């Protein structure tokens, strides 16, 4: 038996072993969706489509689930996720929106404009920004940015004007979006830089030969040619932004509140709490069945949306065939 193992693998054996490891990865994903869906079922069963609607107070509902203990009444499953869903969508859309502009400009800078010496600095910088753990961003957010916003950007009049609903103390939409943008931009830059440097030289030189300036050539030829890559980068980055839990639970203010855009400047300081951060914070009470099912329901929503975003993003990326297609 042992001697058998020491013999070199036959081709067929090798194919089976390698194939098994590949198939295992797929099985894990299927198991992931199935397990989370089973655990989430009671929550969806009790609430139906109203799960996605808005209700009186999310935090009160979550608190009630813990209070119900091990044998919850069916009414304990009552849950309306709208403020959390809205907070997730809001932070993601804002961060990705800013990120697209920043990453396209940064990629043009890296590929077209920067002298080699400057590029040799900027590329490692982007790599570093991508490697910084989210908890470090969160720490800087809560110890540096949040006090700054609290002391210098919010004035007393603004504080009092909303005091009967929420307290403005620094953590909120502004800090969340700034840090989230900082976290997802490097990933987008990486994808856009790859695409931009793959644009055939001849295409740009053709434009230059027609007499346009270098900037025009980049904008009208290169950036136009890599539009699928920019969309793919935005889609993949939103998958990341959706799932960011730890940093957002540190700086978002942790309140199940939906910021109102018509509040003017105060909108930027209003606290919120996305889905992923809610899961991270409520996971301590997971022994209570009602809360457990609700948490898994949130995880299922996150997982399914990120699944569609990743598959969508890679499909769009596949459409980008520079140089080969006419």
């Amino acid at each position, binding site marked *: 038996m042992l001697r058998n193992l020491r013999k070199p693998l036959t081709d067929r054996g090798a194919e089976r072993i390698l*194939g098994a490891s590949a198939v295992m990865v797929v099985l894990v994903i299927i198991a992931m969706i199935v397990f989370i869906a089973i655990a989430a079922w009671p929550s969806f069963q009790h609430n139906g489509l109203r799960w996605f609607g808005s209700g009186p107070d999310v935090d009160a509902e979550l608190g009630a689930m813990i209070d119900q203990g091990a044998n919850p009444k069916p009414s304990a499953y009552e849950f309306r996720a709208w403020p959390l869903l809205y907070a997730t969508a809001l932070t993601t859309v804002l961060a990705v929106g800013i990120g697209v502009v920043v990453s396209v400009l940064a990629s043009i800078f890296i590929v077209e404009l920067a002298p080699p010496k400057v590029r040799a600095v900027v590329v490692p910088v982007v790599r*570093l920004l991508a490697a910084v753990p989210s908890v470090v961003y969160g720490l*800087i957010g809560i110890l540096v940015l949040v006090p700054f916003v609290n002391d210098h950007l919010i004035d007393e009049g603004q504080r009092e004007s909303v005091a009967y609903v929420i307290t403005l103390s620094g953590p909120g939409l502004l800090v969340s979006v700034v840090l989230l943008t900082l976290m997802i931009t490097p990933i987008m830059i990486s994808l856009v830089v790859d695409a931009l440097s793959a644009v055939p030289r001849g295409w740009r030189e053709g434009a230059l030969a027609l007499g346009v300036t270098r900037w025009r050539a980049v904008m009208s030829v290169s950036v136009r040619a890599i539009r699928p890559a920019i969309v793919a980068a935005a889609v993949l980055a939103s998958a990341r932004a959706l*799932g960011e839990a730890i940093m957002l639970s540190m700086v978002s203010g942790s309140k199940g509140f939906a910021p109102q855009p018509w509040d003017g400047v105060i909108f930027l300081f209003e606290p919120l709490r996305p889905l992923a951060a809610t899961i991270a914070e409520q996971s301590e009470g997971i022994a209570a069945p009602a809360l457990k099912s609700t948490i898994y329901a949130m995880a299922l929503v996150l997982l399914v949306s990120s699944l569609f975003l990743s598959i969508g993003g890679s499909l769009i990326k596949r459409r980008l065939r520079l140089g080969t297609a006419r």
Partner: protein
Amino acid sequence: MSVPSPVGAPRSRWSRLRGELRLWRPLDLVGVASAWLVGALLVLVAASLLIYMGYKGLQYVNLDLLVSRPQPGSDQSQTGGILDPIIGTLLIIVIATAIALPLAVGAALWIVEYGRPRWLARVVESGIEVIAGAPSIAIAIFGLAIFQLPLFSWASFSADGGGVFGRSFIAAGVVMSLIAVPSIFATTREALLSVPRHVREASFGLGKTRWATIRRVLLPTVRPDIATGTALGMGRIAGDTAIIVLLLGATLQLQAGSDIPGIGTLQGTGSTLTSYVYNNSPTGEGNAPEKAYAAAFVLMLLIIGLNLLVAIIGRRRAGNDLPR
């Protein structure tokens, strides 16, 4: 019109630039300026991040902190050091990498070298992209569902009533390996695809089997790329907080799950640098910012070290090695 410079004397860079800029539309100048601005801003943000973390870190890190164990305490001066989180981080990296490495390299080899049936190969590829995009908090909560099954009671400790706790180094390490799979897979696959066909054909021509070709020709060729991917994956493992918070228990000290030495630790709970920072930030129970800064500094050193490793290995490789 610009005055033509005398023939023979090369125009200086500046005057050439000025001449060109005069032809540009204002909007284009705004575009160029904002691209430069964004580039400068990125460098500025990274520099201030590094300088600030370095300043705070060196202020609070000392040898005593690194080698003493964390203690419960109400004041920052009593809460001890960060030895246990450092050990926890290293332990998690080792467990997760040991699982992720063969899995990811095996999958990449199968996709590139065999890849039949085609549909299965395509499913595996999208599967790995799904894992890369999946929120780590969702992966963590899936891990909790798995390791709380009675089937896995050996991996963590059980309560008296029979409920499985589901949080341990084994659980966190196994689940964490998923985080590292995509980066190892991607770099290995790219490297295998870039090995020219004739290299394989030469090996076949010498009468080697497919597996012998993989073992003796392909794997040695792509070893630097596997190392790059592994270092990147280790960085992601070291930096992930969500899985640790949910699956390692995030207890202050390493707590053995059973009396067997070694294995007991693996069955027990603990913390890593990330969960230590999280718990000691003003959001967590600890609220010891000095300790949080110190731990974050050590974590940053680890991450930067891994990235330098990638840069050194990657020097021989072509192409840009921006993160993905």
